[in-house]
């Protein structure tokens, strides 16, 4: 019996790979000043402020301040505890047991008592995230989770359908409170919670001002210690140049993304720090394949050959970026270095259009069966800065040379998102994607991701791409995943659902009064609770 007990004990030991990282619950008594306000410039207003329905960078930055995940990822690419203070992973990699902190409370709503964060909230978040009525791009990312079960108030067990690469890191998704949304089963963009969320993070949403500013205040009860800066205010700017000017004239303290043309101006100014951060991002013209004219690959490729991307990059962005060839950023591990960007070749563009059955009409516009090749390009108005305007006008002009008529429509950010992601009412868009380190393009190009508020807004569908994406998700082999991504890169470059443009230099700029600034290249504010402003420099 004793022997059996010993064997069982050993099995338990072997079965559980126990990781017990230290907890960081102590308040920040680190001698750094508390107080002050950080006004930062954003290029628009967030559509929603919750981590489930939002799909833009402005919202992501704010949700990073308001919410926490079970785990976090630090600057050294290590997984660190957040809402879970420790975890266990079964030997087969299918069961993750998280032991939650018992000292975490939700941001209080007005006239409400503090409520504790518990296992129920984790189960609730998973259920709401996977509910069919919840419109979120998270669903595809978390389909590998079979179920989340509460073991007790502070323990949850997550069963995976299959082991996946870097599974633990994926539990960094943000947890929302069970008492948050008005509907207990699902979350929509109409729910008041998405505009007035509460979380467990270092900052609490105070209000949205009439000027569309988002005001966040320090969470005095933050489990990792009160953050140093009292208040964060996100100020939207329609024009990046004006945002930089606002920084220069001390109207704001930080710009999250400096317009490349403004870098020389800021570089010489001793009041500011220019900090690079490498978001894996790129810009593109995306096509709506629901338009039969654009469903023809030859037309999409013709547009790709017709635009002189290097000329645009040099002229409009001071050459501060890199022309790309496919669906990954050059700084990504998945970028296929063998695929060359499409060259500028207007003659080849004309040839392709002719091959696709287009003939030039009397007005110079190409026609196919009497239908003119006239397309609508929709651009969010927040991108209506000088450089983007020039890109759009240059695009129109390049395409005119090959007989394609482009009608440009600038739309307000939220209305643009609705046109693109919900109504799919456009032919071409100009936009950018920003990726975290995973370089996961599944939600962009898999055919299952076609639908309202999904990322495959152009309805691109290719069984070979689908199959490679699925295979990439299923494999536990890093090199296999790399090979598949190289293939995907080459295939998607050839298929041209987008005309891939460039990746730009990313710099944040901030006033030197702000200290201890570390920036997460994707989420930006992950380490903001440690930032501080010395007392003498607080306004």
């Amino acid at each position: 019996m004793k022997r059996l007990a010993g064997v069982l004990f050993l099995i338990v030991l072997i079965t559980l790979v126990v990781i017990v990282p230290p907890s960081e619950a102590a308040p920040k008594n680190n001698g750094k000043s508390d107080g002050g306000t950080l006004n930062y410039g954003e290029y628009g207003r967030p559509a929603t402020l919750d981590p489930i329905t939002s799909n833009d960078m402005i919202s992501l930055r704010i949700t990073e301040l308001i919410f926490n995940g079970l785990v976090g990822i630090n600057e050294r690419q290590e997984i660190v505890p957040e809402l879970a203070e420790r975890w266990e992973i079964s030997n087969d990699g299918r069961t993750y047991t998280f032991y939650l902190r018992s000292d975490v409370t939700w941001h209080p709503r007005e006239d409400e008592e503090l409520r504790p964060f518990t296992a129920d909230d984790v189960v609730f978040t998973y259920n709401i995230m996977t509910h069919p009525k919840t419109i979120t791009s998270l669903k595809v990312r978390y389909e590998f989770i079979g179920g989340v079960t509460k073991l007790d108030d502070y323990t949850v067990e997550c069963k995976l359908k299959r082991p996946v690469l870097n599974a633990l890191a994926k539990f960094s998704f943000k947890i929302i409170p069970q008492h948050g949304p008005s509907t207990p089963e699902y979350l929509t963009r109409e729910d008041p919670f998405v505009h007035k969320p509460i979380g467990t993070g270092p900052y609490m949403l105070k209000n949205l001002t009439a000027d569309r500013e988002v005001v966040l205040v320090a969470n005095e009860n933050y489990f990792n210690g009160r953050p140093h800066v009292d208040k964060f205010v996100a100020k939207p700017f329609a024009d990046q140049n004006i945002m930089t000017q606002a920084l220069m004239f001390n109207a704001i303290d930080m710009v999250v993304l400096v317009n490349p043309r403004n870098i020389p101006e800021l570089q010489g100014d001793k009041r500011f720090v220019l900090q690079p951060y490498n978001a894996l991002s790129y810009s593109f013209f995306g096509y709506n394949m629901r338009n039969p004219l654009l469903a023809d690959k030859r037309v999409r490729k013709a547009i790709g050959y017709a635009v002189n991307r290097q000329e645009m990059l040099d002229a409009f962005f001071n050459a501060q970026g890199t022309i790309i060839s496919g669906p990954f950023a050059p700084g990504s591990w998945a970028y296929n270095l063998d695929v060359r960007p499409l060259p500028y070749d207007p003659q080849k563009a004309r040839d392709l259009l002719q091959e696709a059955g287009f003939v030039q009409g009397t007005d110079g516009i190409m026609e196919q069966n009497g239908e003119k090749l006239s397309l609508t390009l929709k651009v969010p108005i927040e991108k209506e800065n000088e450089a983007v305007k020039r890109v759009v006008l240059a695009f129109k002009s390049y395409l005119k040379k090959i007989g394609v008529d482009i009608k440009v429509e600038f739309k307000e950010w939220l209305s643009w998102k609705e046109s693109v992601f919900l109504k799919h009412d456009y032919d071409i868009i100009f936009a950018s994607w920003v990726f975290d380190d995973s370089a996961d393009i599944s939600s962009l190009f898999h055919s299952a991701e076609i639908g309202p508020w999904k990322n495959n807004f152009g309805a691109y569908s290719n069984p070979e791409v689908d199959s490679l994406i699925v295979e990439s998700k299923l494999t536990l082999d890093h090199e296999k995943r790399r090979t598949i991504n190289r293939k995907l890169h080459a295939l998607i470059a050839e298929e041209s659902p987008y005309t891939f443009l460039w990746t730009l230099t990313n710099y944040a700029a901030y006033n030197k009064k702000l200290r201890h600034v570390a920036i997460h290249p994707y989420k930006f504010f992950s380490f903001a609770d440690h930032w501080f402003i010395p007392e003498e420099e607080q306004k």
Partner: protein
Amino acid sequence: MKRVALFCVMIFFLTSPSYSADDPMQRGMELYKKHHYEEAARMLHSYLSSVQPGKKSAMCLSLGMICFKNAELYRQLYQASLSVNLDYLKRLSAVKGKARSRFVKLYMGEAFLEAGNPRKAASCFREFIADKQISTKHKAIARVGLGLAHYREGKKQQALDLWSGIKMSAPEVLSELAAAYSTAGLTNRNPSVMCEKALASVKKAGQEPSIRILKNVIGVYARTGLIKKGLDLVRHADMKGFSYEEVLVKNKTIRFYDFALLNNLSMFYGKASLGYLKEAAADPKVKDAAHYYLGEAHALFGNIDQSIKVTDSFLSSSRMPRQYKDKATVRQAANRYQKGHKTEAINFLNNLSRQKAAPDLLAEVLFTCSRLHCECPETVAKAMALAESGEGKNLSSVNCALGTYYLWQKDYGKAVFYMEAGRDKSNKNRIEQNDPLTLTNLAEAYYRTKKFSEALEIYFEMSKHFPALRQIQVAMQGVYSMEQKSAGDVKVF
């Protein structure tokens, strides 16, 4: 850096008949200023045979400088490649099971050999050779490597016996053996003739030489001084090619690269630079300038006595500008350090920093200390104070030097901080505006702090001019893909 180029240009104008804007020399110097060394060297070399006699020595000086900078850069890239590739191969070799790589052992053996660990290299080669599924050709290549490992361990006869039993019918094997003979100094085996045979055999088959053959031939040409032939070969070669692609299971292929390629390119350009500079030094009009760069080149390739001699000659000249004399003085101190007079050299450098706080001089002292792996806290303190005093291009050299110093000290946070301060932010990764040596150091610091994408972006831009560094990119992507931890998120912007 630009000042050095201007110095050289000034010498041309003072010493040579006349140069128009479209003159090859002028264009070569423009390319040099942009750090397009390969292009500059190729362009000037193609004009060398037709240049007017009065201009030849100036052109040789120019070619010498360009080749030296290229050699220095390839040396740095080689070291970066070795370190990243060893990380990558170790991770690959940890994979077991059906989809494991067989070839990882061959390339680990080669990497250990390059890293100066013949014992570990031999063990990897033996394991590879013992694998029954490996082709005869690749086993022969591994045997050449094993022989070299033996040779480096002092078991010379064992090496010779092993090599003598290798069948050399495959041009890759023939060139591999030629390179081994050349490395071992066995010139009586005629390695350059063996290389010619390998190249001829490939040509006869209507093929282009593989990257392994190129790597070997460039190494042999470098050691035998066949510069013209080497430049012709390099001009037509695709330097980004992989050495072997291993197909394991469906949708899993691994590409392996030849690490020695970068070292051989460094040796080759180093040898070329010495040749050109010596030729230039024969002309009294450019002798002093040639001696300045010859001193640098000899020091880089470990010929300290020669470096001392020519640097002394440069310092004794009354015509040369002060700032170059200062730099040459720092080099002489470094030479003394390497000859064993360490305390004297360090005291001298400290005194120099104390007396003169010119940014370029402090930077030179810091670069030198980093290269020699010797601490210089006094200079560091002075440089930091200077760097703190403000921003601007004139302090770029100090910031970059501080960053390099901290990189050597493995304080990667500080290394990034200072090199970022010295980087031209308007042209972040462009080699035209940033010294590629500093960019390589910065990429190393980012790699060590696991900011892989920053490092990869630097190499992405650099590879447009130096395609041979593809081997670093691919290995770094491999490490990144294994190390990355993220939620798989993507957002529209």
